[in-house]
């Protein structure tokens, strides 16, 4: 297992290097630049700013400078937010996306697994139909439609919850629901399918015929095995949720990293683009690694060498 983890970490470093190179090239190939403005800056000023940030040097020199910075833990500076370094920006905004994403993830897991399993255990009853309808609806409704609907109903009409912002516990409720709806729907469907399959396994019938209580059969035998497919998608799902969603963060004005990731591309903020892309790649790789380790924990049949 240790050798497995070490191998994966080495692959991770290689993957990050390749991603940084591809992102760097794409970033500079895309037309436009950081200083394009609706009210154009005079060419003399643009030349001076380019010189200040080293943008007039050849690309390989700029890339080498970037790599050198990374080795010293410095992700560079942001052109859009001139008083903070990229590292500071990411460290300040990631926790907010992570808290929101984590809350949405837990909510999606609870709702998704319970709905999915309930539907499977009570197949072809009204519970099953309601759960399948729920998962179909929320798999189809985009997050921004749901988000805006929630804001209109709970904030503008009822004045129960704030329409956005970050700081109070009540700020998390609406965005977490908007974010969690789609993952919950997927998890419910997968949990339902895999529970149905597990329920029909021989060892479940054996457990029941041994005379075990239904609750014990459920928890000890069905649950753990039915959850393996859920764990498969949970890893990437968790990574996607904690790295923030541009749409939900824009609608609810959450100072997270999802918004930054997209807005930095529009603004051609090279430092922030590289920093956030590498950060995302890192998080997703770690999440996949954790999922693979969890397999071995949940299912003793799975072994790594």
């Amino acid at each position: 297992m240790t050798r497995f983890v070490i191998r994966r970490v080495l692959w991770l470093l290689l993957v990050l290097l390749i991603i940084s190179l591809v992102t760097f090239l794409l970033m500079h190939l895309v037309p436009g630049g950081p200083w394009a403005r609706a009210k154009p800056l005079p060419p003399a000023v643009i030349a001076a700013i380019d010189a200040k940030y080293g943008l007039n040097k050849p690309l390989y020199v700029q890339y080498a400078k970037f790599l050198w910075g990374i080795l010293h833990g410095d992700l560079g500076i942001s052109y859009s937010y001139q008083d903070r370094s990229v590292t500071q920006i990411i460290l300040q905004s990631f926790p907010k996306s992570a808290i929101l994403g984590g809350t949405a993830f837990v909510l999606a897991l609870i709702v998704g697994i319970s709905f999915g399993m309930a539907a499977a255990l009570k197949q072809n009853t009204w519970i099953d139909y309601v759960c399948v309808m729920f998962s179909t609806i929320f798999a189809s409704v985009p997050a921004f439609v749901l988000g805006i609907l929630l804001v209109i109903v709970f904030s503008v009409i009822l004045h129960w919850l704030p329409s956005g912002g970050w700081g109070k516990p009540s700020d998390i409720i609406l965005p977490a629901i908007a974010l969690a709806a789609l993952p919950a729907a997927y998890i419910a469907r997968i949990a339902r399918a895999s529970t149905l399959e597990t329920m029909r396994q021989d060892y479940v019938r054996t457990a029941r015929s041994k005379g075990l209580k239904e609750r014990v059969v459920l928890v000890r035998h069905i649950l753990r095995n039915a959850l393996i497919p859920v764990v498969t998608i949970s890893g990437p799902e968790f990574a996607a949720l904690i790295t923030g969603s541009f749409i939900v963060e824009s609608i609810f004005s959450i100072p997270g990293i999802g918004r930054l990731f997209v807005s930095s591309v529009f603004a051609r903020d090279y430092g922030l683009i590289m920093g956030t892309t590498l950060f995302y790649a890192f998080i997703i790789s770690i999440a996949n690694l954790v999922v693979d380790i969890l397999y071995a924990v949940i299912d003793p049949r799975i072994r790594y060498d």
Partner: protein
Amino acid sequence: MKGRTVFLSLLAIVIAMVLILAPACSSKTTTSASTPQVLRANLGSEPDTLDPNQAAWAQDLTVIGQCFEGLLSFKTDGTLQPDIATVVPSTSNGGISSDGLTITFHLKNNVTWSDGTALTANDFVYSIKREVSPSLACPYASFYFNIVGAQAYYSSASDTSDQQAALAAAVGVSAPDNYTLVIKLVAPQETILDCMALWAVDPIRSDIVAKYGDNNWTAPPNYICDGPYILTTWTHQTELVLKPNPNYWGTKPKLQEIDFMEITDANAALAAYQNNQLDIVAVPEGDYKTYLNDSSYANQRLLVNQLATFALEFNCTQAPFDNALVRQAFACAVDRNAFITDVQAGVGKVTTGWIPPGMPGYDASAGSQYDFNPTKAKQLLAQAGYSDPSKLPAVTYTYANTTDQTTLAEFLQGQLQTNLGITVTLNPEETNTYQSNINAGDFQLSWFGWIADYPDPDDWLLSEFTTGGGVNQTHYSNPSFDALAKQAESDLDNTTRLSDWDKAQTMMLADAPIAPIYNSEGFSLVKPWVKGLDASTIDYSLPGDRFYDQVSIAAH
């Protein structure tokens, strides 16, 4: 059994949570005895920088404008008034020398910084030199190149530090004593005082910048300033909170707190306003009609004229727009009234002139030859050799693919089809790509807008239409225009200067490198308890944001 219990208990938990949390979060109303004097407005996005020397975006200026005061500032009618200076320098009071090359400012001697230190002329000397320093590459540095030695110092990035220091010492700003500032110019320039009223030369504390660094001194509590407010908290991507400056030398403001929220989505900001989380909000263009016609918002609507003009832009080096007659034909072919009524729901004012009303140089009859006239448009096109419009080379309209610009593009396409019989191809581009392509001249027909940096024609005609001008996107080149502009630029007699600029504007409009369509109006909603808001053409980014120190909040 198990499934149903799980399902129902989950439902019960969710309902309980909402019921428990909801009443605790509903908005409160205040009693008349305890109305907090807090103004909440939406800045729209995180400021790039709060360093006056380096700021360029309008939302940066809204915050800087609360915290800093400079030598001079603008009144709502566009004229200058002294802030830190005792009087506005002029030739009659000796502030401007007779040859126009020396400007002397006398400063008030009771001005203090927010940490209690006295403000002196050296703070201005430091700020002006920093504005044109080679290492900072400030975006508005070019506005000060008429100061002796400024441009040489700005271009010295590749020199040694000794050479740079020598160039810095040679810049023509000095403080003969603590309360006098002397500026030496290369050529006389009537509008140098307008440039000295900009935020870019607000006083800066050299010791604070030296201690915390160019990029870190703007974080509270290092951010020492001289205006009515100080920045107490900056929660990045969320909000900025300003409170009154305890050491402010002038009249203490009534507002005890200003909260600038950073809600990037315009509709989310509108929802926050309706949920009483904001006191002022800008109405998105798609909602103009709704809020103009809804009588429940009658006492909340605020329409403010802006010193801004928007125009069709032609690339004068590309066929068919290298022919002035074609450009003039297009200018006559757009029904501006239909644009304002149908697309803008009545918000905005039609114009055929470039310089907007409300500032010197405005000419109500400018461009009147381009009033909407489809017959005349077709005649002009025939004169150009295209009596059959289908023989015209293919025309593409390039624009940034935002919602507002897309509506505008479709409107223009419809107008040109109906009135001239020309099919224009639409070419939407991502905003940043679009801006970069336009600046590189990669377009045929596009849209051009200008918002005043300061209220004078030389901000509207010099770099936009002189040959090789920094903002000359149309590549318009007319030697007679260049000569007139050069003459007007250094003319100290205001009457002849403005008349020269008027002639220049008429000349430019006759050649039609642009076809002005409308002057914009800002449409905002303001809560009825906000009193004393003075919104005008000189707002930075929010209505009345130059004079928030005069606002108060009534009981509600």
